[in-house]
């Protein structure tokens, strides 16, 4: 696996993967959106607001999982002094930030008609909001420190500190009685969603994940190119 962490090998492999990924994400997104919009019935309690969940659920899952990916990449970067790991974490941060924003906004827009409020200081919602600020802090730290090695290490440490909020965002509903409902998609709890909603939801989840992977690979390739350009510039200046 480590051979793919070599920048040249990474660029070669991901260059071949990107087009199929974009195509698959685009097709699944179109199918999922069409299905969610035109073929799903209204929920007997939620009415048409149930359609919001086809974007809210995948976005929330990605918001948390992207943070987990960043944390693992940062830990590998810190332990193994491996710069591609840091670059992957850096590349993932704006994507995670965007999906967290989507989860917060669509959750608020769903909450207003269903809960009667845009926001409550519920454990899960609050943990996601704090995670959003950790994403912002992480991106800001990378942007403010000029020396890449130092920026990588400090932002990696910040990322690891914030892991607790990603964990709480995922599991808060198990620890506390929160307004936010528990997991609707759970192998242990069995089927809790009717097939009419579950199938398009799964399609949207796969589409969002493929879109995420494609974006992450493009952003990681960008970071590798920028690092290479910086190294060439420094070599030229030293010569």
């Amino acid at each position, binding site marked *: 696996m480590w051979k793919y962490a070599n920048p040249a090998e990474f660029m070669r492999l991901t260059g071949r993967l990107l087009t199929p990924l974009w195509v698959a994400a685009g097709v699944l997104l179109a199918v999922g959106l069409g299905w969610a*919009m*035109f073929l799903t019935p*209204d929920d007997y309690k939620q*009415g*048409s*607001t149930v*359609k*919001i969940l086809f*974007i*809210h659920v995948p*976005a929330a899952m990605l918001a948390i999982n992207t943070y987990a990916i960043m944390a693992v990449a940062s830990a590998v970067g810190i332990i193994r002094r491996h710069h591609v790991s840091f670059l992957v974490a850096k590349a993932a941060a*704006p*994507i995670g930030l*965007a999906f967290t*924003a*989507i989860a917060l*906004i*669509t959750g608020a*827009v*769903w909450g*207003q*008609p269903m809960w009667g409020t845009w926001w409550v200081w519920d454990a899960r919602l609050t943990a996601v909001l704090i995670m959003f600020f950790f994403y912002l802090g992480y991106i800001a730290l990378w942007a403010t420190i000029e020396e890449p090695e130092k920026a990588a290490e400090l932002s990696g440490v910040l990322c690891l500190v914030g892991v607790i909020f990603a964990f709480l965002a995922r599991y808060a509903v198990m620890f506390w009685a929160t307004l936010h409902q528990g997991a609707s998609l759970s192998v242990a709890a069995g089927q809790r969603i009717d097939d009419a909603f579950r199938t398009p939801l799964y399609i949207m989840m796969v589409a969002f994940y493929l*879109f995420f992977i494609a*974006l992450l690979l*493009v*952003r990681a*390739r*960008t*970071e590798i*190119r*920028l690092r*290479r*350009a910086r190294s*060439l*510039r420094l*070599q*030229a200046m030293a010569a």
Partner: protein
Amino acid sequence: MSFLADKYAIYVLAAYGSTALILGWLLWTTLAANARARRELAEMEKERGR
């Protein structure tokens, strides 16, 4: 689109609209930054080859 006649239509449209805006911005900035980095690296490699 039957939901457009529904009392919750504005909420559904707001959710999908904001998602489209955020994902559109993310895609645009990602591709633009990649194109910039590709140009910058090509220029540096060209200079190095001289």
